[in-house]
Structures are given as structure tokens and as C-alpha cells.
């Protein structure tokens, strides 16, 4: 079997193994083992990918594998990775691994919980390795649907409402994507021989007629944009995250939202560059609004999860913003931002879950001075906050600066003006991060019941440190990641430039 399919097979095998688990202890150890193998495999994939590149392999896709699945419609199971998908796979395995440990104490229906969680992960992995639009969409749905159960059953607060809202809005997005994909499929043969294909590369080489692009680009972009929390279709995010259990928030904001950005880039921009070029300005305005609006929205929230959800709207808005800039540097920044935000937000949700587990509240003004009581969680929270506000040495800085510099290199004034608008978010981000840190962690202890809380235990430390080390590693030595992504972006951007 090829290495990439293993990324789908291992989670599925883990799910089967969990079915035979007798108790919580066994369930979580099976899950942890499965995801540890997955993490190891991802590390192996990164190394073998870089090794291949060092050997001079310049093919666009590596480790490809292709098998006909449904011949009459020309549907294949085609997998392959480039630097971008390798990076996304690495991100996913890190977040899933940390997520397992963050839900170590999930006592209610634990088997079912871990099964849904890992099933979701398998969908995400499948999405990132797919090169066939049909298979890609299939995995996309596999990833989105367990979310409903995870929030609806294991959530808190108005969980049915939130789960329904999230699922319906994302399904609305899926509907748009499906129409878009079918539109692409039926326009994938400009010769008129009805020789249609779902294969990403073939479509890109053949090109789609501009009339079809004009119609299907906004559909696909919007569809993926909903998942990427594009203003004004982002309101599922605060409610959904607030109700979701810790690991689900981590996975959802950390990984699932990235399917939006990734899909928008791989499908909408890559396959329909002319329409993207024509219509980008509308979406650039929407995303620039997302960036600033999300940040301001976060300033006044009282619930930790809402703060992080609005912060995600801002940061993910920056991803889509950068994608629409359609130049190599900005796109590179978009991918790094996806990874950086994925790690940061997963870390935030993990910490919020851990703090909630102790204080039983997420309202910041009911807490205070926690730094002194739970120093480990406090310090990690501060570092996560600093990463979020773009401190050099942590991943957020690398991503944001790449995006800003890239976006500002556009020759026309419009792109540069919106870039300046988007940069203002760095100040607002500092405001809301420091506000939370100041109220939650610093100052005197406000609630005396909190005086005897215990600090993080080993699985919590493992979960948070995994994410923290990744954030710092990217922030300190970003060059290998950035070069890996750049190498894969180059042919794509060159093709786009040649078409325009």
C-alpha cells in the first residue's frame, strides 16, 4: 500500500480497535497509540518528502497513487502530496494527537466519542491527500458530519442549537461546493468530446472556459469560505465552538477550518484563476472586513471561547485574504498562517478546556489572578497569546509578515490599501489578548474558591507542550517550512501568471 493511504487507513483501524475496548483506560490508550503512529508517520512523510526534493525530484506531486473507482463517470481514487499538503498533514496529526490527550478524562460515552473524533480525523487526512475532486468532496463530508454528533452529544450549553446551526451552515457551504465541483466537472473538457474528469491536475492543464469560471468560482469560493469563517457567514463559529467539547473545538478550529482555506486555494483559485482574478476584489473586501471585524468583535467578549472564536474569524480571514492576493509570497503566508493558526487556536481551546475543567466557568470576569495558582497553564496561555498577537520567535509572526509583505508587493494601489487596512489588526489583536491575560491571569485572585486549584497533570502538559513546541519551532526556524511550501507554489503561481 502507498504511504499516503495509510493516513486514512490508520485512523480507520484505530476506530475498529476502539470498538473492542472495554473501558475508558483501554479506549484512550488505543486512541493515543493510533494517533502516535499517525504522528510518527507524518514525521516520516515530512522527512521522506524533503529527502525526495533533495534528491532533485521536481515532480509537482510526490507519492502519487491512482486507481479507477467508478469508471463510467471517470472517478478515481487519486492521491499525491506537494509541500502544501505535507504541511497540512503534519499540522493535522499534531492537533489530533494533542486533542486525544486533551480529552483524556472524557468519561461520558468515551468509546463513541473517540470513534467519532478519529473518524473525523480520517476525513481530514483523506481530504488533504486527495487529487480527485470527487474523492476530496467525499472525505470533506466525512469530516464535517461527525461534528454534528460530537457537539450535539458531548457539547455543553445550548448544544443542540449550536450543533444544528453549525451543521446547517456548513452543509449550505457544502451544497455550494458540490454544485461548483459538478460545474467544474462538466466544463472540464473544452474540446467538447464529453471526456470529463475530476482530476485536479488534468483540469488545471485543460483549463475551464471563462464563462463557466465566472459562474462557478464564486460558488466554490463561497462554499469553502463558509468553512473558513468568511464574513458574513462566520456566525456558526462562535456558537459552535462555545458548545463543543475541548478536543472538538481544537480539531474544528485547528484543522477543519483549514479545509476551507485549503479548498479555496486548491479548487477555486487553482482551477479558475481568471475568474478569481476578475472577482477577487469583492472577496478581498469581505476578507479584509473579516480580519478587522473579527478582531474588534473579540475585544468585548466575556466568554473565553467566544474570544477565541472571534480571533479565529480574524486570523482565518487573513488566510483567505492572502489566498486572494494570488502571488507567491502571500500564498506562502496563507499556508503558514493556516498551520500557525491551527496550532495556536488548538492550544487556546485546549487551555480553555483545562481552565474550565478547574473553575467551571469560562467567563473571564469570574476569574482572576490564575497565574499564581496554576502557573504552568498560565505561562502557556501567555505564550499562546503572544503567538496570536504575532510576537517574533513564534509562528504567528512568520505567517503574518509573509502575508503582509507578499500582499504589499502588488503593483496596484487597491491591494496595497487593503493590506494596510488588514495590518491594523495587529494592534487590535494585542488589545484583546492583553485584556484577557490581564483579567484572567494577572492581578489579584478574584474568586477565593480558585485558590486551591491544581496545576496541569501529565496528559495536559503533553497536550499543550506538543502544540507549544511546534509553534516555537516554526517561529524560530521558519525557513525550511517556507521553502518547502514555496517550492510547490512556484509552478502553481507560474501557471496562474501565464494564464492571466
Amino acid at each position, binding site marked *: 500500500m502507498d504511504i499516503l493511504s495509510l493516513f486514512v487507513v490508520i485512523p480507520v483501524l484505530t476506530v475498529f480497535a476502539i470498538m473492542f475496548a472495554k473501558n475508558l483506560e483501554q479506549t484512550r490508550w488505543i486512541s493515543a497509540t493510533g494517533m502516535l503512529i499517525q504522528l510518527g508517520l507524518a514525521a516520516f512523510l515530512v522527512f521522506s518528502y524533503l529527502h525526495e526534493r533533495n534528491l532533485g525530484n521536481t515532480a509537482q506531486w510526490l507519492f502519487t497513487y491512482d486507481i479507477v473507482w467508478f469508471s463510467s463517470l471517470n472517478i478515481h481514487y487519486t492521491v499525491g502530496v506537494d509541500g502544501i499538503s505535507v504541511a497540512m498533514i503534519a499540522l493535522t496529526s499534531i492537533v489530533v494527537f494533542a486533542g486525544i490527550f486533551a480529552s483524556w478524562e472524557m468519561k461520558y460515552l468515551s468509546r463513541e466519542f473517540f470513534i467519532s473524533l478519529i473518524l473525523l480525523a480520517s476525513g481530514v487526512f483523506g481530504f488533504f491527500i486527495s487529487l480527485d475532486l470527487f474523492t476530496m468532496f467525499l472525505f470533506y463530508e466525512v469530516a464535517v458530519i461527525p461534528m454534528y454528533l460530537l457537539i450535539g452529544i458531548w457539547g455543553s450549553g445550548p448544544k443542540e442549537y449550536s450543533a444544528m446551526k453549525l451543521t446547517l451552515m456548513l452543509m449550505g457551504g457544502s451544497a455550494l461546493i458540490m454544485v461548483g465541483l459538478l460545474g467544474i466537472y462538466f466544463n472540464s473538457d473544452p474540446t467538447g468530446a464529453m471526456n470529463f474528469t475530476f482530476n485536479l491536475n488534468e483540469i488545471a492543464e485543460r483549463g475551464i472556459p471563462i464563462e463557466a469560471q465566472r459562474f462557478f468560482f464564486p460558488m466554490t469560493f463561497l462554499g469553502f469560505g463558509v468553512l473558513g469563517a468568511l464574513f458574513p457567514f462566520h456566525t456558526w463559529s462562535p456558537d459552535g465552538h462555545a458548545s463543543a467539547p475541548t478536543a472538538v473545538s481544537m480539531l474544528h478550529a485547528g484543522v477543519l477550518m483549514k479545509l476551507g482555506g485549503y479548498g479555496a486555494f486548491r479548487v477555486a483559485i487553482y482551477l479558475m484563476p481568471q475568474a478569481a482574478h476578475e472577482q477577487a476584489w469583492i472577496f478581498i473586501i469581505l476578507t479584509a472586513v473579516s480580519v478587522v471585524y473579527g478582531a*474588534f468583535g473579540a475585544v468585548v467578549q466575556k466568554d473565553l471561547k467566544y474570544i477565541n472564536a472571534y480571533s479565529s474569524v480574524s486570523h482565518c480571514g487573513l488566510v483567505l485574504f492572502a489566498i486572494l492576493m494570488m502571488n507567491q509570497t502571500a500564498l506562502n503566508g496563507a499556508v503558514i498562517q493556516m498551520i500557525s493558526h491551527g496550532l495556536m487556536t488548538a492550544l487556546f481551546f485546549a487551555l480553555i478546556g483545562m481552565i474550565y475543567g478547574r473553575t467551571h466557568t469560562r467567563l473571564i470576569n469570574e476569574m482572576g489572578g490564575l497565574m*499564581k495558582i496554576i502557573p504552568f497553564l498560565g505561562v502557556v496561555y501567555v505564550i499562546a497569546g503572544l503567538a496570536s498577537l504575532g510576537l517574533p520567535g513564534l509562528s504567528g509572526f512568520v505567517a503574518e509578515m509573509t502575508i503582509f*509583505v507578499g500582499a504589499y508587493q502588488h503593483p496596484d494601489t487597491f491591494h496595497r490599501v487593503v493590506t494596510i487596512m488588514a495590518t491594523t489588526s495587529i494592534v487590535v489583536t494585542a488589545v484583546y489578548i492583553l485584556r484577557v491575560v490581564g483579567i484572567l491571569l*494577572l492581578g489579584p485572585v478574584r474568586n477565593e474558591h480558585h485558590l486551591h486549584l491544581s496545576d496541569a497533570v501529565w496528559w495536559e502538559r503533553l497536550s499543550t507542550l506538543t502544540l507549544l513546541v511546534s509553534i516555537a519551532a516554526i517561529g524560530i526556524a521558519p525557513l525550511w517550512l517556507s521553502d518547502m511550501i514555496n517550492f510547490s507554489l512556484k509552478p502553481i503561481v507560474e501557471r496562474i501568471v501565464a494564464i492571466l
Partner: protein
Amino acid sequence: MTNYSYTLLIPLIPLAIFLITGLAGHKFKPIVSGLTGTMGLTIAAFLSYTTAIRYFFIDGPANGMYPQIKAVSTVWLRFTDTLHIDLGILIDPISVMMLVVVTTVSLMAHIYSLGYMKGERGFARFYSFLSLFSFSMLGLVLATNIFQMYIFWELVGVSSFLLIGFYYEKPSAVAASKKAFIVTRFADLGFLIGILMLSFTTNTFDFITLTSTSGPIIAAPAGAAFVGISVVSWALILVFIGGAGKSAMFPLHIWLPDAMEGPTPVSALIHAATMVVAGVYLVARLFPAYALAAPDALHVVAWVGGFSSLFAAVIAITQIDIKRVLAFSTMSQIGYMMMALGVSGYGDHEGLGYMASMFHLFTHAMFKALLFLGAGSIIHAVHSNNMTDMGGLRKYLPITHITFLIACLTIAGIPPLSGFWSKDEILAAALHHNPALFAIGIGVAGLTAFYMFRLYYNVFWGQERHYHHTPHESPLVMTIPLMFLAFAAVFSGFLPFSHLVTSDLKTFETHTDLAVAIPSVLIALVGIGVATVMYRKPNSLPDRVSSSIKGLYTASFRKFWIDEVYQFVTKKIIFSGVSRPIAWFDRHVIDDTMNAVGWLVVTTSERIKGFQSGQVQQYAAVFVSSVVLLVLVFVYLFSN
């Protein structure tokens, strides 16, 4: 040419110590962290002195010009083929000078804190943050390109944030640290946009290229203009905003007085001698670009500097918290340095202002650090920051008293102490280029002498207070740094700066201009004299003076209400005016629209679900009546 790659150790030693004490500091006794940090800084300082001696005196200028050497350089992040962030070390006169300043003051603060912070909770944390700051500041001064500077710029910002908020259980310290970070972040936004604009016009981040007289800015300034000012000027003005934020120039100075919430050695190191002069250093770094390609931007620098120095001096007169007096004095002196850069030209004797600014930066670092550490020693003795709780301390704190007096005389500009020489050059430069700013400078000199001696007399003379326990002199570990810095404050004025640090890297000759020196010394003496009359012995004169100019006094005492403006902007505009409506809009307009869509679907299906009742009679009735209706319609249609 000497190989300077060993200078890499200078920033890396503090970094290593930060990591070690930060991660494992709690495993040892606190003093271990303190001593490790101090030892590391001693090595770094030694290496810096070696570098300075080599660079200035052993190697010296080659062909009459000091070389700019990239000792180390490695690509850290690549944006495009031409735009990449390098991390490296640039050795040139100003960076070598700053190495000496930063490591000296940092070392003194390290030694001093061994006594000052003794027994504090978080002693190890304090030292680990000090190391982080030293690393960041050294990385900043050694930067080879503007983006590296921005990186370390942010890192010194966060170190400052951590150290101001060192007593994190104290709400005022938390508020002050937050304010410092956010105000400087706002300024950094300007810096960042400036960098983006420069990178777009010039396609490089590299300092040597940016400031080269044959480089893209100076030799071929881009023609495009906006509101009559060229793009390069706008970019440099924006970069200057970043510098103004860090260097506490009006109106971005509001964080500096509050930053005094931090431990006093921190105020000495970060908020007096090193980080706050980063803005001056930034302008000096890009000086050829300012002077030759963007004279408009340089005018902004000059006037902002001049105004800030006057503004801060006026406020310093009425403050009663000794650290705040010193904070405003710092702002005022930095305004001097900015003004000196602003009035300077490029090359040879024209560049007098540039040289004077760097000279003053150097001497100011020494005497202001001395003042702050002295203030720390006073606070240590009486456990209060307010001069109303002090008086007659000269017999209890003899060493602190003498060193503090030396520092006061130095900042007042009394010859032959170092402050006189550097201030004299600034005023001389101002006189030749901008008489209005020269007048401001002279006025500030008088005010400075007055408020420093007001402080001095109130603390060491004046009315003796009733102390809970007799104040006693600080331990040797605190007084040795005072004596060292006093020595530096006295003698650093004799350094031949015009042979060392100049705008075009070439040396030139200066001579004392009596037309400047005499009035500046006279006005300083007047300031000291007035302060002596008013404050040496307790009398009613200060009260009578302040009540006779009540309005002005209150305005100065309330710091011209700039803090209230800040409160208004943050609380009323950003919080209530923008964020709250946005949050409301999001919940009640956007989200309710989504809910309304959901409601519409549910209601519609509720209404029409009756059709799917499963009752055959009902279906038959609908079927038959529809057929009848259709037949009637068709009959009607076809009968016409």
C-alpha cells in the same frame, strides 16, 4: 581586517541564560539565577569592550572612513528572491557604541539587582527576563536589516511588558504593562507600514543598501508623491512613528511614566538608558536616507523631538513621584537627541547634530541610569516613591547622595561633566540650523537644571521627615554600580566622539562654541539657583509660586490631561464606540439574519406539512376538486 564573527556570542550568551534560567530556574536557589545572569553579562560586556577598542582604536578608520562590516549574516525567512529577512550582525560605529552602552548599563542593573531585588518572590524570573531583554536589545542594535530590527524591536517590547508587569498581582502594574505594550504596538504599526512601503519602493531591507549614497533611496528616489510629500518621506515618517512610540515622543509618550511601576533597576535599564533610545537609534541607523532623500521627514523628527523635550520638562517640574520626574526627564532628554538628529545635515561638520545626538545618547545612558539606580537606593531606604515622604537624607545615604549630586550636575550641563559636552554640541548644531529649536533647547536646559535640583533638594535637604526606621545606606552590591556610573558620568564627556561616530563615517574636528556654551551654562546655573532658593530649606515660596500660576501648575501636574485623552480613546472610542457596536451588530444583525433564515424554513414547512397528512380522503378530496377546477379553467379558456 579583524574578524568580528565572535560578536555573535554577545547576544547569544544572554539568550542561553534566559533559556536556562527560564526553564530550569525554579529548580535552583534564586541566587543561582542572579549570579548566572550577572556572570553572563560580564562576559558579554567584556566582549563588547574588546570589540569597541579593536574597532575604534586598533583597527580605526580605513582610508579615513570607518568600515561597515557584516560580521555574520544568515537568511532567516525568504519572501521573494530579493526580499528576505536576514539575521546577522552589523559592526559599525553606532552599533559598537550601543554595544558598550547596552552591556554596561545592563551589567550595572544586574549587579545592582542582586541587592535591590533580594528576597523578592520571582527573583529568578526577574533575572531570566533581564537576560531576555539584554538579548533582544543587543539583537536590535546589531541588526543588519530593518526587518531584523523590527523583530528585536517587538522582542524588547515584550520584555519591557514582562518587566513592567513584574509585580503581576498589583493591578496598577498590570495596567501599566498593558498600556506600554499597546501604545508601542500602535506605534509599531506605523513602523511596519513604513517597512512595507520602503520594501516596495526599494526592494531591499538591508541597512547598508538603504543608506548607501548610491543606493535605491538616495541615488534614485522614487518619484511618486502623495499630498506633496514623496513616498519615501511618508515611509520614513511612518518608520519614525515606530521610533517615537518606543522613545516616548509626544503624543505617544503616555506609557513611559506608568512604566515606572516596574522594579527600579528595570526603569534604569530599559526605560532610561537602552530601550527608550531605540527610536533615536532607528533614525540614526537610517540617517543618510532621512537627510538626503527625505528632508520633510527629518523636519518632523526635529519638531517632534524639540516639542517633546519642552513638554516633558514642563511636566517634570511639578511631579512628586521621584521616578516620574526622572521618567519625564528621560522623555525630555530623548527629545533633545531627536531634535539633534532633526537639525543635522549629512557629512563632515554638517553632521554635527548627528554626532551630538549619539554623544548625548551615550552620556545620557550613563547619568540617567545613575539617577534611576540612585532613586532606587533612596526608595530602598525609605520605602516610598514620593518626595513628600523624603527630606534630609544626605546624612543617612552618603554614597547615594554624592553620586546623585554628580548625576544632577551632569544632566544640568555643568562643565566639565559629560552632560555639558554632549548638550553643548546639540545646542551648537541647533543654533546653526534652526534658531527656534535652539531657543527651545536653551529653555529646556534651564528647566532641566531647575527640576533636577528641586528633586535633589527635596530628597536630600529640605525638611527632615519622621521615618519609621532610620534610613540606611544600601549594601555595597548596590553602591558599586552607582560609583561606577558616576565615574562614567564624569569622564565620558572627554571621549572624542567626532572622531568615532559621525554621519558619514568620516572623522571631523569640533571645538567648543563659546556663544553656545556660556548661555547654556548660565541658564543652568540660574535653574539651580532658583531651585536652591525654593527648596534647600523648608519655606512657603514653592506654594506661593504654584498658587500664583495655578492654571499652569495644574496643567503641568495633570500632565496636560493626555492620560485622560488616552482613556477616552481606549474606553470610549475603541471599546464602547467600535468594538461593542460590532459585537452587537454581529449578534443581532448578522447572526439573527441566519436565525431568521432557519426560522423561515421551519415555519414554512410547519405550514405546508399539513398537505402530507396521509389521509386518503383528504388526498381524494384535493385530487377531485383540483380536477374540477382545472376542467373549469380549460373549459373557460377554450370556449373563448
